[in-house]
């Protein structure tokens, strides 16, 4: 029983981590493109 709970908790953590990591790669790419535009003087607008 204990192992099942641990397994479920571990799977939740793993899912969080993997989903977050994939999303973070997208953040990295998109903000990287913005950074390059900023560095080369073609900054876009991203205001609320």
């Amino acid at each position: 029983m204990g192992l099942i709970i641990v397994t479920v908790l571990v799977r939740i953590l793993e899912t969080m981590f993997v989903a977050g990591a994939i999303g973070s790669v997208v953040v990295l790419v998109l903000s990287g493109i913005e950074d390059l535009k900023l560095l080369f003087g073609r900054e876009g607008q991203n205001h609320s």
Partner: protein
Amino acid sequence: MSSFGPTSPSNRVRIVVATSVMLTFISYWRAAAIVLNDLASSAFYACGIAEQAVGKSAPWFIVAVMLFSFAVRAVYVESCSMFVRGGVYRVVKEALGGTLAKLSVSALMFDYILTGPISGVSAGQYIVGLINETFITADIHGWIPRAVHNLFHGTPHLNVNMTSVVFALAVTVYYWWENTKGIQESSEKALRVMQITTVMVVILLAWSALTLVKAGYNPVPLPVPQNLHFSKESLGFLGHSFPEQSLARMFGLLGILIAFGHSVLAMSGEESLAQVNRELAHPKLKNLKKAAIVIAIYSFVFTGLSALLSVMLIPDAVRVPVYKDNLISGLAMYMWGPLILRLIFRAFVVVVGFLILSGAVNTAIIGSNGVLNRVSEDGVLADWFRFPHRKYGTSSRIINMVVLLQILTILASRGDVYVLGEAYAFGVIWSFTFNSLSMLVLRFKYKGERGWKVPPNLTIGGTEIPIGLFSVMLVLLSTALINLATKSVATLAGVSFSAVFFVIFTISEHVNRKKHALAKEHMKDHFQLLQSDTVDRGSLGIRPGNVLVPVRDYNTLNHLRWVLEHTDTREQDVVVMTARVSQFGTAAYGLSSEQVFSDYEQTLFTRAVSVAESVGKRISLLVVPARDPWSAIAQTAHNLESSAVSAGISSKMSAAEQAFALGSAWEAIPEPKKQFVLQIVKPEGIVDTFRIGPHTPTMKNEDVALLHRLWLNVTREPGLENVHHHDILTEALTRFAHDYGTHDHENIVKELRRHGTESGPLPVRRIADQIHTVQPEPTHPDRDDGPHSPKE
């Protein structure tokens, strides 16, 4: 106009409280340098700690953490675009309320308290490693005297951990004293340290590339579960629960997550970005983004690549056993090339390590002080902690508490960098997690201005879903949770520490609430606080040409008495100001009166009003929050169009040094600006007067005589009969400026130094020449037979 007066509610003393800190702004390069002094210092120990925990594939996790730090940086940029001081405390308080804000700031304090010891001990490890290596080399060459050899029963050797503890204590005590004295953190110094570090990084990378080509390399095992070799300590509580099972094999991805959690301290220091944000020059958001790019790229290149190179170039037999706590030194020793060059480079690495790591010790004290001042301003920490040092005016009680905790941590660690690093990660990951979680909540809760958002954001049915922010939060939260299970030392130490701080904050806040209610009543009876976003004459109701009197210690108000006795206040207004020194990291804009006007200011102004009452003259009162008191005085004098600033003599600076400090602050004010006079009033009533800004210098009699002789000679030349004294001076200065700027620079500097040595220490002489003024009046016509000072 504000004035002293009876304390009836209808005629209370008006005090203008400026609610914006008077800051001197810095470029994004300098801001990046300040943050990198903290962030890049982790390159010196992060990989060694990670490899001990997860094995030889640790560098890939360091690289992953450094890439992920780009995303964490994006969260900080968004928070700073919402709040000028967008650090953890402010963001969590806005999103999740005071209780969780206190909890998150407790975790942040744990991070800052640990930054000092880990940096100090790590610097000690690098230095002792070099000393021991030098002993070995010297012994091989027979340079160690036999007596010394016998004393140590072999090659002399220092106990690495204990010596590192002594070194860390020495550095901490040194910076404790510097911070108590109130030495301002200099962005110039941070920039210099980063320039030297950059030279080291460039040499390191170039030489490593050459070594890879010439000598080959060890492959770094890929970060897959079968390549992870956790030590028993690195599994923490899981190691106790599953002693016979390989968790990495049971749950493949879990192993990756555990390894990632053990590498996360490589990105410690991101919080400093929020702290320097308020000092960034206009355009703030653009400069913040630029600073963030510089920081992310630099730390990725330095920390990430040096971690990979250390495993590629240092043999397995020595990497962990010998160089685990000074990996970059090990890297220097395994470069391709002659031993002597490698030793020289290692010494350079140690010097750079010493500079950046001991700088991080200072940053830790400043950061902790800033955070505690910030919460203290909000009434979360008792006013007692903010009471200024009697002599130096700094928040020495907070500094003492922080340094005491750091010293206890250093002693408890016994110089073990691994233990310190494991514990350090707790504060790092939880402060980031609280920050990202709060930012996520604020996406739905906060309706104010937001300059930038973490991408991508998907809008479905009019509701924006912050996918990027949510993703970053998921990684941070999962890492923080797994670290709770795998880092037993960190969990026990971090939770205990945070709990103790949380209890202190909660009790303090409760006590303060009662006390502030009473103080508010008292304040209502005596003072009327008028908030003003900026300092100007209108808000004070005063005329131009007024006298500004800075005050700090309520026991030394002699200079105020002197000013009042020598000023006709019907003709000239007297403004008494105090600068509430707002530490690095504290709030910058939109401060409440309570944040700026504490018990101390109340006592100070009560005394000032008593002095004014005893002389029978009117004064205006002003409180200005400031990062640097000299900048605050210079900017206030400028804004109020003061003709004079009258200050008391400082206990730690001479009158000339005070004038130099104010002169330097005046130089930083943008044009157009007016000159004013600085009067330093000594206790015995003697007044030293200085003119701040460009002015006619004091000329010695022999210089005037020389000028006159030259003029006589020149006017004898055909066609030059109408040349004036000032023409000679103009020509001489033009030639001097040309020579100084070109070929003769070194000789001029040498000559000035020689003069300085002959007629007293150069700094004093230079100060005197630059700003001490006895303004010679041009009383003679230019065509005069006798020598005289030239006209302006």
